[in-house]
């Protein structure tokens, strides 16, 4: 495998959890229901995918279980926000904490394992061979034997973009994201749309989570996301919650991971620092984005719109 193919191969495999999750996050963001609990959704999904996939003996059932679990977790978040009246961001932070606690409890209390849950005999997601296509220079070797979830993610990305841009639901998501009044006036129910968008974000984060636990290695522990959910969320923000933007941002962050992996091979002796590259890339991207935005609105009408307080003072 040439250097470029190798780079692309790693980029693709790092891309899956970020992109699948970010495409979901995009819906939530667009509906003005920022899902900062993507990381937690990924975590519970990873566990569900592994446990169910192993029990059933079919990894695809595991993926579906992961999507269901991710959606359920987003449902918990929705319930907290629209049922209990919690602030979206705070509830998201809480949902992430809960995901860690709940998954640890399940691993220990239900699956009878501790720390890492690594069942034996799990069937992993297949890695299709491309046949003669693998001989295409550069791209062929990069795509050869990638997890089938890579292809699923490509499909999901296309589908999500189409749903957002070309369907009634997508239109309603965008409408709700900009003006509840406008939506209400035509009978579109904002809360309903937001909950739906959150559930979608959870389900797609479920694909990202499942990828981490049953695609390459059948193992789970509460640290396995390594903050990928937050990076995916950052990709949504950086991509301004548009399909192309989100895809581009996800590619950027995946590339940062891939670069970090490659830089480790060149003996720089700064390996811990290289490891931080994706996180640094995220901060830089967010900063660049903010600078661009602030340029654009420098002379604009001052924004006095106030996000209502979460809770009054007691």
């Amino acid at each position, binding site marked *: 495998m040439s250097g470029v193919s190798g780079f692309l191969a790693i980029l693709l495999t790092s891309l899956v959890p970020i992109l699948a999750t970010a495409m979901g996050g995009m819906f939530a963001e667009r509906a003005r229901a920022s899902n900062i609990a993507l990381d937690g959704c990924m975590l519970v999904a990873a566990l569900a995918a592994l446990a169910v996939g192993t029990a059933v003996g079919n990894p695809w059932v595991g993926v579906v279980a992961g999507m269901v679990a991710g959606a359920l977790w987003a449902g918990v978040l929705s319930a907290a926000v629209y049922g209990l009246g919690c602030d979206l961001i705070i509830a998201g932070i809480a949902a992430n904490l809960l995901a860690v606690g709940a998954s640890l409890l399940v691993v220990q209390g239900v699956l009878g394992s501790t720390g890492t849950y690594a069942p034996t005999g799990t069937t992993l997601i297949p890695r299709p061979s491309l046949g003669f296509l693998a001989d295409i220079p550069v791209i062929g070797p990069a795509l050869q034997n990638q997890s089938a979830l890579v292809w699923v993610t490509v499909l999901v990305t296309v589908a999500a973009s189409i*749903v957002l841009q*070309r*369907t*009634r*639901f997508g*239109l*309603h998501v*965008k*409408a709700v994201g*900009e*003006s509840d*009044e*406008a*939506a*209400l*006036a*035509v*009978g*579109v129910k904002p809360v309903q749309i937001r909950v739906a968008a959150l559930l979608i974000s959870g389900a797609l984060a479920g694909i990202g989570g499942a990828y981490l636990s049953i695609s390459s290695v059948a193992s789970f522990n509460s640290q396995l996301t390594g903050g990928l959910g937050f990076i995916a969320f950052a990709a949504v923000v950086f991509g301004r919650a548009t399909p192309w933007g989100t895809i581009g941002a996800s590619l950027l962050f995946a590339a940062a991971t891939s670069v970090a992996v490659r830089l480790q091979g060149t003996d720089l002796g700064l390996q811990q620092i290289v490891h931080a590259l994706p996180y640094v890339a995220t901060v830089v991207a967010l900063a660049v984005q903010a600078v661009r935005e602030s340029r*654009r*609105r*420098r*002379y*604009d*009408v*001052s924004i*006095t*719109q*106030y996000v*209502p*307080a979460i809770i*009054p*003072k007691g």
Partner: protein
Amino acid sequence: MTTARPVARQGDPPLLVMRGIRKTFGSLVAVDDVDLEVRAGEIHALLGENGAGKSTLMNCLFGLTRPDQGDILIRGETVHVTSPRRALALGIGMVHQHFKLVPSLSVADNVFLGSEPHHGPFLDRRHSHRVVGELAERYGLDVRPDDLVRSLSVGAQQRVEILRALAKDVSVLVLDEPTAVLTPAETERFFQVVRGFAADGLAVVLISHHLREVREVADTVTVLRRGRRVAHEPIHAVTNAELAGLITGDAPPADSEVPFGTPGDVRLRVEGIELVSGRGKTVVDGVDLTVRAGEIVGVLGIAGNGQTELVEAITGLRTPAAGRVLVGPVDVTGAGPSAARAAGMAHVPEDRIGRGMAGNLSVEANITAGHLGSPEVGGRLLSAPRIRRLAAGLMTAFDVRAASPRQLMRRLSGGNAQKTVLAREFSRDPDLVVCAEPTRGLDIAAAAFVRRELVARRDSGGAVLLVSSEIEEVVAIADRVLVMSRGRIVAEFVDRRPTEAEVGRAMLEGSSS
């Protein structure tokens, strides 16, 4: 199933009947046992003061609120309008007083939002674009289906709202203050369109405050006062004077004649202010003005003609691209609000909720927020008792009614909130008061209180700049009236109280499109 049609006085039976509608918000009765009948082909004007209940009544019709009591009949059949979607299905369309559009979506998407033509789950954009194009052509509404709404002028946005109603194939069309934001030319064109609707057999309900307009297009009028119906007549059966009497009630206007003040030193001098928006549009284009001690200067203009931005520049919230602002002798251009305040300026902002107060702090905290720099609230450390005393005093002086000083600001009514703002600003004994839309949303008594306070400030030697879109109010108390249009001062009335008609003409003639 149609039964025997009651023979109506004017021929056809009413297409729309609202009977005994009542709607309360807490203890406030917004609509009280109101009847309304509109026939096909009729343009029915609904008149009344601010807060009379017009919008609420129409919101009941459109399913945006549920009436507490009363029936709605369409073509003689009782209907239950549970949601806007249901209303549209029943053939009821509404153009809202406050636009309900999604700025980043295209015209066509906005028009069909909520009932999009579709193939399966996919949008049928070709169809929606075609329908929008056809409707626009048919009614002479100049909009393109794929323009983004946020790039449209206010008038064009209104056309989108109208298209939205028409696209649903409605038989009842409600227009809530459609002309408030239109230029005279746009208004004229709009009325042609409305006449076209009536000719097509629609029942049109038109809410407006402009008697002249109403007389021009309407066939029938209904007048609401404080939620009750006080008149229901063919338009030619009542004179404008009678209508005005019906709208305001028999009581004469609350304000008595305000004498002129005696101007002294210049307290505010604005020289050649220019402001440019983010998109490079000049919103204020070289404004000069002065305000003297003992003088109220009124600036009038239709919304969106640069008044808001001018006030922001004067009060330091915005840095002008060119020009100077002097408060007394001090040049405060671009130095921020604290400089202007230090120079003796007080500001009653237009955006009372967002700028003028912190809804999640107590009334006490809000009313004393402008006094944090003074020793009234304590020495090196703040003194809770002193703060409490100061707040209580101000609340009494300005008649702020709250359950307690610790009540959250956002739980106050609009009038009391505005009084709190006034209390905070006026109690600093400023040399210059800049106030924008100080009576917007207030009832008659509260508005009168605010005007009295402004005149009192002037009489005690203060300078007042009153920026407002309420002609009546400005004409009644201002010593000088400036009219602003397209970012410029286009007319000035000195040493006399102009008539509302004069001023209105000036506002409209220079108006932006």
